[in-house]
C-alpha cells in the first residue's frame, strides 16, 4: 500500500470522465427520460379522457335509443287507435248500410204487396162483374146497373 503518482493520473482520468459525462451523457439521457415521462403522462391522461368520452357517448346513445323506443311505442299506439277507429267506422257504416237496404227492401215489398192487392182487387172486381153479368144478363141491363157495379168494384 504505497502511494504514488497513480493518484494524480487517476484524478485526471476521473475529472475527464466526469466532465464528459456531465457534458455529453447526462443531459441528453435525462432529457429523453423526462420527455418520455411527459409523453406517457399525456398518454395516460388521454386514455382516461377517452374512457370518460366513451361513457358519455354511451349515455347519449342510451338516451337516443330510449327516445326512439318511446317514439316507436307512440307510433304503434297511434296505429292501434287508428285501426280500431277504422274498424268502428266500418262497423257503423255497415250497420247503416244494412238498415238502409232493409228499409229499401221493406218499402219494395210493401209496394209489391200494394201492387198485388190492387191487381187482385181489379181481377176480383172483374170476376165479380163478369159473374154478376152472367147472373144478371137475363134480368138486368148491364148499362142500367153499370154505375152500381163500378161502385162495388171500387169498394172491393
Amino acid at each position, binding site marked *: *500500500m*504505497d*502511494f*504514488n*503518482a*497513480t*493518484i*494524480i*493520473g*487517476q*484524478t485526471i*482520468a*476521473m*475529472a*475527464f*470522465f*466526469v466532465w*464528459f*459525462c*456531465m457534458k*455529453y*451523457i*447526462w443531459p*441528453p*439521457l*435525462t*432529457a*429523453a*427520460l423526462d*420527455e*418520455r415521462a*411527459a*409523453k406517457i403522462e399525456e398518454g395516460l391522461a388521454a386514455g382516461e379522457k377517452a374512457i370518460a368520452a366513451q361513457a358519455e357517448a354511451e349515455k347519449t346513445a342510451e338516451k337516443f335509443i330510449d327516445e326512439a323506443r318511446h317514439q316507436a311505442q307512440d307510433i304503434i299506439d297511434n296505429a292501434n287507435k287508428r285501426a280500431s277507429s277504422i274498424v268502428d267506422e266500418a262497423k257503423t257504416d255497415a250497420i247503416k248500410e244494412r238498415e238502409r237496404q232493409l228499409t229499401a227492401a221493406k218499402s219494395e215489398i210493401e209496394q209489391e204487396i200494394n201492387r198485388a192487392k190492387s191487381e187482385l182487387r181489379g181481377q176480383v172486381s172483374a170476376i165479380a162483374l163478369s159473374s154478376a153479368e152472367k147472373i144478371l144478363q137475363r134480368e138486368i141491363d148491364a148499362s142500367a146497373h153499370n154505375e152500381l157495379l163500378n161502385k162495388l168494384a171500387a169498394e172491393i
Partner: protein
Amino acid sequence: MAAAEQGARTTSQYIEHHLQNLQVCRVDGEWAWNQCQGNFWTLNVDSMFWAVALGFVFLIMFRSVAKRSTAGVPTRFQAAVEAVVHFVDASVKDGFHAKSNLIAPLALTIFVWVFLMNLMDLVPVDWIPLLAEKIGIPYMKVVPTTDVNVTFAMSIVVFLLTIYYSLKVKGAWGFSKEFWAHPIAPPSSGIGLLFAPLVIAFNIILETVAFVAKPLSLSLRLFGNLYAGELIFILIALIGLWQLPLHFGWAVFHLLVVVLQAFVFMMLTIVYLGLAHEHH
C-alpha cells in the same frame, strides 16, 4: 492452473506476484520498470490502463445511447442504460436537495465506473496475468479498485468537491463554524465564556477528525473490500481442482460486493456533497 506455476514459484511468491502492480518510474533519466520502491513519481501502469479503459467503456456505452436517445420506444440496451441513469437520478434526488448540474453526472460516473472496475474481479485471477506474461509483461493487476491509489484519487476528488461546495454555499465563515461551533455550541455569555476556548478546541479536534475520516473511510472501504475479495480469489486459485466450486461460490458472493461497493461509494458521494450544500 496454479499447479504448473508452483513448480517455478512458491505459494507466497505466487500471491505476491498477483498483488504486484506493473510500475514505471524515472531512475537516473531512464524509465525503470518495477524498481520504484519508495519513489512517489511512480505510475501503476496496469491500474491506470484498466481504469482508463473501463472508463472509456462507460463513456462509449452511455454516449452511444445518449446520442440516439429519443422519447420514443427504447431498444433493450437503451432501456438498460436508462434504467441505470434513472436509478442514479432517483438516488441523487433522495439524498441531495440542492440544485447542481455536477452531482448527478458525478454520481453516475462513479457508480458505473467503480462497478466496471470491481467487475474485473470476476475474471479468473490467472487469465489476464498469464496472457500478459506471454507477451512479456511481468506484472498485471487487472482490478483497479484493489489499488489504493485509485480509490484514494476518487475519494480525494469527492473531498475537494466537498470543500469547494462548502465554501461556495456557506462561505469561509460559515464553513469554519462547522468546525468550531459544532457539536457543542460554545457559551457566549456569563461565566461560561471562560470555557469557550476549551469548547472550541474540543470541537475543532472532533470535527477535523470527522472531516478527514470521510474521504479516508470512503476510499479504504472500497479498497479493503475489493482487495480482500481479490486475495481470496487468489487463495482459492492456489488449492488445485477444488477451486472450481469454491471459486463459483465466492464469485456469487462477490457479485454482491461488486454492486454494493459501487453503490455505497456513489451514495456516500451524494450524501457528502449534500451535506456540503446544507445550511445549519
